[in-house]
Every structure is written in C-alpha cells, then in structure tokens.
C-alpha cells in the first residue's frame, strides 16, 4: 500500500515537475509546481514527518506558490507565454540537465546508505522531538534567521517604496 502510494506520488511529482519545465504559460508552471508541492507534502506524510508536511504545505503551497500565482496575475503574464529560448539552447539545456541527472543518479545509486533502523517506527517527525532539537541545538541559527527575516523585510520595503 505504502509502496504503491510512494510510486504514485513519485510519478505524479516527476510528471508535474516535468510539466513545470516544459509548459509555456507561467500560470501553468505555477499550478504544476503547486501540484508538485502537494506531492512532496504527501511524501513527507509517508515519511511520517507530519509536522514537516504541514509546514511544507503552509509555507510552500500556502504562501510561496500563492505569491507566485499572485505575481503572475498582477503582472498579467499570460501573454508572455510565447517567448522561449531558441530550440538549440533548449536542447542544450535539456542535455545539460539530463547529463547532470544521469551522472548524479549513476553515482548516487551505487552508494549504500547506512541507515539507523526501521524508519517507519521513528517518531522524530513529531513536533516535540523536532522542537527539542530546534530550540536546543539549533537555537542560534533559529535566532539568526530572525536577522535574515529582518533584512528581507527592510529589503522588501526598500524595493517597494516609491521614490
């Protein structure tokens, strides 16, 4: 059951990722990417990383992709679907991506990843265990990311301000 679900999500995610790349209209790109995000959310659930799954949906599907969609609508980019790189460049880019993929997959496929134990039983995806790590070991990066947010905020204001 789980395996079938996994493969189903994989195929769906890959399909939508592929469509992200090849679809011509920005709005389709956004929607396919959103679909891919949901598939990845499903993957997180399969990994029993519930908290991550929900946060993933909130952040990516709920905020980031909405912003993308918002931008597409605000700029009315529908008509811009037509322009594309020359075919040769596209083929070259595809080839580059493909080669990267083949190389990486080829290399990584061979590695035997040493694993701790039966992953289905792990409870690390639960909020409490994550929180313990986040607020203990990773407290400093957590605090520092507030600096990052602050800078992003100031930056957004700077960009959005009228001159």
């Amino acid at each position, binding site marked *: 059951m789980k395996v079938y679900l996994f493969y189903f999500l994989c195929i769906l995610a890959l399909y939508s990722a592929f469509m992200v790349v090849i679809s011509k209209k920005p*709005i389709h790109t956004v*929607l396919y990417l*959103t679909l891919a995000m949901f598939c990845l959310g499903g993957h997180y659930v399969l990994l029993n990383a*519930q*908290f991550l799954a*929900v*946060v993933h*949906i*909130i952040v990516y*599907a*709920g*905020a980031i992709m*909405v*912003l993308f*969609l*918002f931008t597409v*609508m*605000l700029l*009315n980019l529908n008509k811009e679907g037509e322009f594309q790189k020359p075919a040769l460049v596209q083929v070259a880019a595809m080839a580059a991506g493909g080669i990267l993929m083949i190389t990486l997959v080829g290399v990584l496929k061979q590695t035997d990843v040493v694993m701790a134990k039966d992953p289905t039983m792990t409870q690390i995806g*639960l*909020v409490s265990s994550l929180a313990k790590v986040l607020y203990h070991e990773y407290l400093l990066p957590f605090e520092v990311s507030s600096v990052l947010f602050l800078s992003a905020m100031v930056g957004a204001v700077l960009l959005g301000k009228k001159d």
Partner: protein
Amino acid sequence: MEYQFILYKATLSIAILTVSLLIAMYSTLAERKLAAFFQDRLGPDRAGPFGLLQPLADGIKLFYKEEFMPASANKFLYILGPSLTMLVALLTSAVIPWGNSLIINGHEFSLQVADINIGILYVFAVVSVGVYGIMIGGWASNNKYALLGAIRAASQMISYELAMGLSIIAVVMMSGTLSIQKIVDQQAGFNWNVWYQPLGFVIFLVCALAETNRAPFDLPECETELVGGYHTEYSSMKLGFYLFAEYINMFISAAIISCLYFGGYHFPFESMLPVSHNILTIIGVLILFLKITFFGFVFMWIRWTLPRFRYDQLMKLGWKKLIPLAIFNMVITGFVIRLLH
C-alpha cells in the same frame, strides 16, 4: 477491527460532511433571514414554513440555471476553481472534535475524524491553501473584475493568515499542544481560553472574517466595485459551490473559534450532571453546535452592521494593527507563562 474502524470513520466523515452541507444550506437561509430582521424585514418565508425550504429552492434553482462559460476562459481551470474551493472548505472539518467519545459495546468511538497531533497546523495549512480556488477561478474567468477580485482575495488572505497564525500561537503556547482535541479538553468546565486570550480571540475573529471573505472584508466579491469579484462570470452550480464554500468556511471558523476559545463541546458544570458518558457526549455535541450557531450569528450580525473596508484600510489594519497586536499578545502570553512557571 480494521474493517470496523474504516466503517466507523467513513460513517463519521459522511455524517460530518452531510452536517456541514446542511448547515451551510441553512446558513444561507439564516443569513437572509437575519439580514431581513436587522433591516426590519421578514426575509424569505414563502418556501415552506418560515421559508425553511428556501435553501432547497435556491439549490434547485442553481442546478437548473444555464451553465455559462466565457468563451475565452480556460475550461479546466474554470471548473477547477470552484471545485477546489469546495474541497478545501470541506477538508477542515476532519480535525475538529465534534464531541467527546461515544462508548458503544465497550468500544470507544471518538467524534473526530482524525486526531492528528498537529491539528491546528492542519487547519492552518488547509486555510492557506483555500485561496487557490478563488485565485484560479478568478484568473480563469478572463475578466478584469474577476481578476481583481482574485488578486484582492489572495493578498487579503495571505495578509490575514499571519495575524491569525500569531494569535493561534498564543493559544498553543498556553495549552502546550497543537492537537485541537487536547486544547478543547483543557478547557473543560468554564476554563475557557477566551478568559486568558481576549485579545487573541478578537484578532482571531477579525482574521476569520477576513479569511472567509465575509463583510466587512468581502472585498474580493464586493458588488459595488467589482460586480461580483472573482465569481462574476460564474453561474449555476459552480457559483453555488463558491457560495456554499463560503458558508462552510464560516461554519468551520465558528467551530474552530468555539474549540479554541470557548471550550468546544465542554460546558460549565458538566461534571455535575448525573448522566451517562454517552448522554453527556451528546449534550456536548449539542452545546458545541449551540456555540457554533452563536458564532455563525455573530458573523452575520457583523456583516449586516459594519460597512465594507476600503482596500488600503484593509491592508493597513492587517499589517499595521493586527500583526503588531498579535505579536504583542504573543509576547505578553510568553511573559505571563514564564512568570507563572
């Protein structure tokens, strides 16, 4: 056991969906009735006694109306929009504890479809996804009013989600859990969160209004400016989906408010009632629905009282008032918790 479990969950889900739909249906009637009453009118009273069959009539009317689709609209997305909205609206009900458990033949049946331990976040996630239906629908209509409505909806929902989340966090800080069931159980008796989180409650209420696109935040569909906003081009049952979804959302928000701030299915002095567990549960469910009804009423009451915001006022309220307030609330909560421990 497995079979039984699935059957029970399926029954529960179907029951909840049915109830949601029913309530949404009658919310439309209630809305119209209340609007009439606030305006010293009577409201619909022709279909059935007191107009009770009016929602049915509306539904039938919507079904029979012409399926209209703008020629330049994107067919798939045009249909996807309302469907998504409806789907998302219905999804939220899964984590709401409708009542305490029922004990039948020694088996305990919880009245909650899924007690996931991050229920609040689940709600939040679903709510944040809710905007897609509106945006896609508005975009696919290929109509400037619809597009404007969609854009407004998106920015409004994103903006108010933040304050909403922040106000929820204060509750979560107090209760120390993300599970709605546990939050509800902590409020047993008269120990409601609203006594501790009045500010949070107000913020949440305002944000809930905005998230459900209810007046005074109904800018996405504001008739005077945008004709009908994102659903300008919609008709027939697709429009019905949008309208329905709004009422379902309202119902769910009322339920969540009841659960988070008003003790859910708990009521004062319940432990003193000399009744069996199951009866108590049923009373609890009724109490919850009473609370939901009350908040549904509050939603409508507000709608028919307050004038619509201007768009810049809306944004200003969201970003400059509610978010700082919510942060303030959170900080205060943190301090108090720290002091008490």
